């Protein structure tokens, strides 16, 4: 996964099909994206792991909800004459965003041979959105393993049809583990879509930031917005690592 993307999906071992296999049908030939979660052997540890995933997801949702406010803050600073200069205490996503904006406006001259950041951003956007479509348009095959024992498997079509396979003698705690894993996996899939949604809204804001001076259209800053939103989520990863 690219460094610019959040680790929210790293919690599962996701096996994706190739891009060429994208389809919207749900026949046996439909490709699947396998979301496999292998939980620790002790049940309390397994539950704690799920709880941790849920906390991460909540944190990601909150961070996403803050994106527009953060951009608003940048806008206010710009309106107050602080322009788009990078402040010493600027958070990393804002710093990178301003950096990209500066390049977009031709304000930054890079040394010869230095790769264009915009090119990198464009590549990330393409890779990220490709992945998004694969995850959305394929059957989500969610498996829970506990101490390598296969607890349950659910196949979810992108229209919501749900087929679940249980071990006949599964205990209620095992059922809980799989149900919670399933819920988290599906929520994460939606979260990925929310990243796109927030990126489009952020793009509109960023183009407003630029609009009066550069006349840049919103669509064209979508890759920059995508990167910014992902960077905001990456901040969570860094915070989490610091806490841990």
């Amino acid at each position, binding site marked *: 996964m690219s460094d610019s993307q959040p680790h929210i999906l790293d919690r599962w071992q996701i096996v994706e099909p190739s891009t060429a296999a994208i389809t919207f049908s749900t026949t046996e030939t439909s490709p699947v994206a396998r979301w496999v979660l292998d939980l620790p052997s002790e049940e309390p540890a397994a539950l704690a792991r799920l709880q941790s995933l849920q906390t991460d997801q909540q944190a990601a949702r909150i961070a996403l909800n803050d994106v527009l406010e953060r951009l608003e803050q940048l806008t206010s600073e710009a309106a107050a004459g602080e322009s788009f200069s990078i402040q010493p205490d600027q958070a990393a996503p804002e710093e990178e965003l301003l950096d990209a904006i500066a390049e977009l406006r031709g304000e930054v001259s890079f040394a010869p041979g230095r790769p264009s950041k915009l090119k990198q951003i464009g590549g990330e956007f*393409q890779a990220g959105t490709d992945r998004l*479509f694969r995850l959305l348009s394929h059957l989500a095959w969610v498996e829970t393993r506990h101490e390598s024992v296969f607890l349950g498997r659910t196949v979810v079509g992108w229209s919501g*049809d749900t087929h679940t396979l249980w071990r006949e003698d599964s205990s209620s705690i095992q059922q809980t583990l799989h149900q919670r894993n399933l819920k988290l996996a599906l929520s994460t899939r939606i979260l990925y879509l929310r990243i796109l949604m927030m990126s489009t809204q952020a793009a*509109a804001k960023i183009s407003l930031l630029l609009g009066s001076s*550069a006349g*840049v259209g919103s*669509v064209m800053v979508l890759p920059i917005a995508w990167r910014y939103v992902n960077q905001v989520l990456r901040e969570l990863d860094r915070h989490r690592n610091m806490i841990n």
Partner: protein
Amino acid sequence: MADASEKLYFNGINAVTGDYELALSAEELADMVQGIKDKQFLSELQNKSQSEYPLRPDKSPGDLAEAGWGIIFPENSDPAIQEALSELIAWRRDQAQAEEEEYFKIFAGDDGYRQGDTKDSFLSRHGIGPGMVDPERGVPYYLLLVGSPGEIPFDFQYQLDVQFAVGRIYFNTLQEYANYARSVVTAERDGVALPRRVSLFGVANEDDRATALSSQHLVTPLVTTLQKESDKLAKKGTGWKIDPYMAEAATKSQLSDLLNGGQAPALLFTASHGMGFPLGHIEQMPGQGALLCSDWPGPIDHRGPINRDWYFAAEDLSSEANLLGMIGFTFACYGAGTPQRDEFAKPGKTPNEIAPYPFLAALPTKMLGLSKGGALAIVGHVERAWGYSISWSGVTESITSFEVALRQLMKRFPIGYAIEAFDLRYAELATELTMLIDRREKDKYKLTGTWTAHNDARSYVVLGDPAVRLPTAEKDQTPADRPVIQVKSVTGVAPPPLSPQPQSTFNAEPASTEPSPSVTSALTPDANMVFGSLWGGSDTPKADDEPGPLKKFVERLGDFMVKMLDDTTTLEVDTYVSHDLDQVEYQGGKFVGAKLRVATRVTIDGDTKLCVPQDEDGDIDTELWAIHTAAVQQAQASRAELVKTAIEAGTSLFNLFKPG
């Protein structure tokens, strides 16, 4: 007042689980209260609480020529809606402009509600600050909002309503707008003289504290109050008939008789639980806020899903019913509408989504838009309604706002003015709350009680024109049956709550998906090269370019959404079991080598087919059934959220392409 640890119950029942929609201890609730952010608005409300009169004192709120009337559309509202309401608009124009031209206003287009508007931004754009309403300043006292709460948020309505008399209508079809307009105009212009009759419908369910409270301490004293009022009015020749339907008499069939039986009362007051459904449940839109009647045996005698025969929903109201001239008041959770997010989220937590988008309750909406004659207005509650405010802070029956509102209606005051008592109460409680928060009140009882009552008072809204009044027979006038209205056919569907529709958006090729010529004009050469080729094959995007990744992305999202919406007409949930999971394969949409034990098929119209699991003795396998039921609920919720998020993403993306 209850002990801090004792659970507080609210007037909402979850249709699926049969449990209360919300039960919190005073302590838990107090924790939530301390997260209140909108203190600026709270302190602004102090102005209201210090003024007992909402309108300039020399102006009569009962006369539109003095109070004024305005109608507010969202800035992008479909002109066809205004056209469908033209009869009502023309009628109000004549009334409000009888003396002063500026006492009538249409706020549409640039003057309409703009996305993100607050009360302040809207009013200041029209030259108005806080304080008493003076229609000469350009904004009339009576204001009708026309739009879904997705277009014009509930918060805007709450805030505006503190200062003005505000109502709202939103229908799914232009025909209903036209029906409503004709109903109001007919009731006021054509001499409708309904019998002076008020029905009070006081549900009481066994072992249920919420309805025990509302029936004993709200509806019963209201019956007494209204009888006294009627006795006074009788001396002037305008006495009323008070019809109470209490406890076991407050059944669904009784309510059906009242509404469908051809003799609906002029004024109807109900107090009951309102039905709540999980996020995205197929019944949420049609059923949320439906009135749970005394048929429900209560929380002890009945556990599990609520029987459909126990609550009165929109579909129970006949399309042939005639409620012309009626004004209703429902005290019930979600009786008027549901916000998108839980309004009781804990501080620091993101509020849970409780609905795919905010919406008005289906029952009052249907009551207003009936083709033979609709109700004029329904007052109801958005979000959960709180029995707490009936009995609060040591006062057993703190119901003055209800009494005042109903008495004012009986005296033929307009509904928007009649419920000013709720706004004053809201403002007063907000002032108290601001003070408690400012001094960091430690008494959680007090903080909780004040916040609860404050929220309760705030969330009463008028659905319908706030200037309507009961068309009851006046002194010496002979009451008559309701006339049947005739409205010419109006074709067309009003825009959905979430607009624009993604399907049409992405079918709008190629113009809407092409960047405007100026998109990259000011980009640096580097940027043009990178993002231009991201869009298409050349540095500068053109319509006939080979699609680049960005363009492909837009096209794929469009395809995805169109197909997704097409495929979400049914939901299939299957549960299989097997001894050896490793030997099971997934082929053709099923697990091969495993036993299919439970299957559910839900169609878009709510039709549900079930294959129920049985154990070896032929009894229902309750454990598996429980797992499967949870899976069905999760599938519904997950799909609803996916669809909603996809629509939001598509809408946002579409907006990027809009010029300007």
